[in-house]
């Protein structure tokens, strides 16, 4: 092998290895930095809802509340985003006129180009006041149902998990749609033509060919969306109100903080290393969570893609 070739090959291979090592390094560094804070933790890290870290000599913090709010926000977002994304993916691949499909797809992709802080500001300053009457109505009518009961930031219904979930859903649309669309497009033409030849209506074609073929891709894409939702930071930090002295109470009109928004909201505590360690520990849990979700999502997708 010529020297030029050897150098070039080693450089590119090195870059590949670097990326692999990088993921390990992220986990390792977060773990190493989290350990001192975890040792100084006077509460149970996994089961406590408390979070007081400003005094490095007397810290007690736990992630239970963060975990619950993170999952609640993501679930609300997925409930809104999943059906709509499915509809959009079907629209772009099966319904939209062929010539316009690309332009329409571009419009959906534009949603992904809007910075998340703008989504957050729009959510709290524009969307939340606009849906306030609706939120109040649900709140009042279904107050007997715990999930929809008045939350821990009442009487405000603006900075709630519900609002955050709606905004997050909008941010997930392009992510879930683009992958789902990719899989739907790959539905074998003979299947579609076969169904058409049997006299199926367009909906029946979709139900009998596109959906069975694309189901795994759709589920995988939704899981990628979930991964994104779990880690979304600034939009949620802007929207969610943090209740004083109260915790998550299983209502979507609760306020609170997710892993990511908690870290972002308290960046001022990063001035001292031990306090920062508490947030890094929370970040480590978030990293593991998103890693697992993404891992599962990729496994589901590559099963279908066969590559």
């Amino acid at each position, binding site marked *: 092998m*010529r020297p*030029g*070739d050897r150098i*070039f090959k080693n450089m*590119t*291979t090195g*870059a*590949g290895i670097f*990326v*692999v090592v*990088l*993921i390990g390094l992220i986990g390792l*560094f*977060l773990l*190493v*930095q989290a350990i001192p804070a975890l040792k100084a933790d006077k509460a149970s890290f996994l089961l406590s809802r408390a979070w007081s870290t400003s005094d490095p000599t007397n810290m007690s913090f736990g992630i239970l509340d963060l975990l619950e709010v993170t999952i609640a926000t993501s679930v609300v977002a997925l409930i809104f985003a999943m059906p*709509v994304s499915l*509809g*959009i993916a079907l*629209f772009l691949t099966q*319904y939209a006129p062929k010539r316009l499909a690309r332009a*329409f797809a571009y*419009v959906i992709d534009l*949603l992904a*180009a*809007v*910075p*998340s*802080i*703008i*989504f957050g*500001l*729009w959510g709290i*300053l*524009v969307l939340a006041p606009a849906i306030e009457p609706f939120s109040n109505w649900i709140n009042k009518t279904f107050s007997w149902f715990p999930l929809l009961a008045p939350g821990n930031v009442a009487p405000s219904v603006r900075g709630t998990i519900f609002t955050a979930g709606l905004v997050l859903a*909008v941010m997930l649309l392009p992510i879930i*749609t683009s992958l789902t669309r990719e899989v739907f497009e790959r539905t074998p033409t003979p299947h579609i033509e076969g169904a058409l030849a049997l*006299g199926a*209506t*367009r*909906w*029946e074609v979709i139900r009998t060919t596109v959906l069975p073929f694309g189901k795994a891709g759709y589920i995988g894409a939704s899981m990628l969306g979930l991964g994104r939702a779990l*880690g*979304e*930071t*600034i939009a949620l930090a*802007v929207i969610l109100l943090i209740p004083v002295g109260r915790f998550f109470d299983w209502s979507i009109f609760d306020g609170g903080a997710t892993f*990511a928004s908690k*870290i*972002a909201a308290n960046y001022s505590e*990063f001035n001292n*290393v031990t306090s*920062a360690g508490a947030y*890094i520990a929370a*970040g480590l849990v978030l*990293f593991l969570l*998103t*890693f697992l979700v993404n*891992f599962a999502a*990729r496994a589901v997708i590559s099963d279908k893609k066969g590559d």
Partner: protein
Amino acid sequence: MTTATSLSAPASTPAFQQVSLKRKVKNGVATTLVWLSFLIAVVPLVWVLYTVIANGIKRIPYSNWWGQDLGSVLSDEVGGGVLHAIIGTLLQALVCGIIAVPLGLLVAIYLVEYGRGTKLARVTTFMVDILSGVPSIVAALFIYALWITTFGLPRSAFAVSLALVLLMVPVVVRSSEEMLRIVPDDLREASYALGVPKWKTIVKIVLPTALSGIIGGVMMALARVMGETAPLLVLVGYSSFVNFNVFKGEMASLPLLMNNERVTNSMTPGSVGFDRIWGAALTLVIIIALINLLATVISRLVAPKKK
């Protein structure tokens, strides 16, 4: 001879039944829902863009908005501009690009030219996928743990750029990989047949052929990282003055300025903070749009000439 057989209709009456009402209704409902979900997705996009433009346009048309910083203006005083934040945003993106583009490109070259089918390439592809799912706040915490706690270096714009690299690399790898893959093997083989070494083939034949697509992908990735806010919060402080030094001192950027206004200023419509935050949002959207436009133009210009 004279029988007028119409070729456009079947010779005998169709053997099929008329589509029943139930199936028709189902088909109609599905069609409506699918169209509806696309429209649902367009609503927030238009609404967000309208909000940004309508609220942001007030401050934008003046030269001091683009030519001054906020250093000499009280936080609730009308006037000043966002030059310091624009410079910060561009500078951080530039530094990030200088590191992320070569790295991402090398990984892509490895995956396409050298690693094809090997185990390491599969692991690398997988890790790139995982990296693209790492939340931006986790990337920020990793750089914090590495740069600030472990190396003991101060918070700086360079640390921000490093965190952005983590977010940009997977995007660059993905898009470049796709572009390199569609370069026809004939070109490579023709080059080898002329005795050109592999590395030179890649540098002189493969890369130029794929260049327009690669540049497009890189610019889009740059536009994406410019809107990131989470790493800024953790890794650099806000300054209302222009700062060109990425290694030292605090540096503003558009998202950070927006967050700073949000925290320190009143957000009632028409107030100074309100105008400023939406002005900054519009500025950010304009910059992102310009970069996307530039991406299209550049990739047109460097596209390989077709016969």
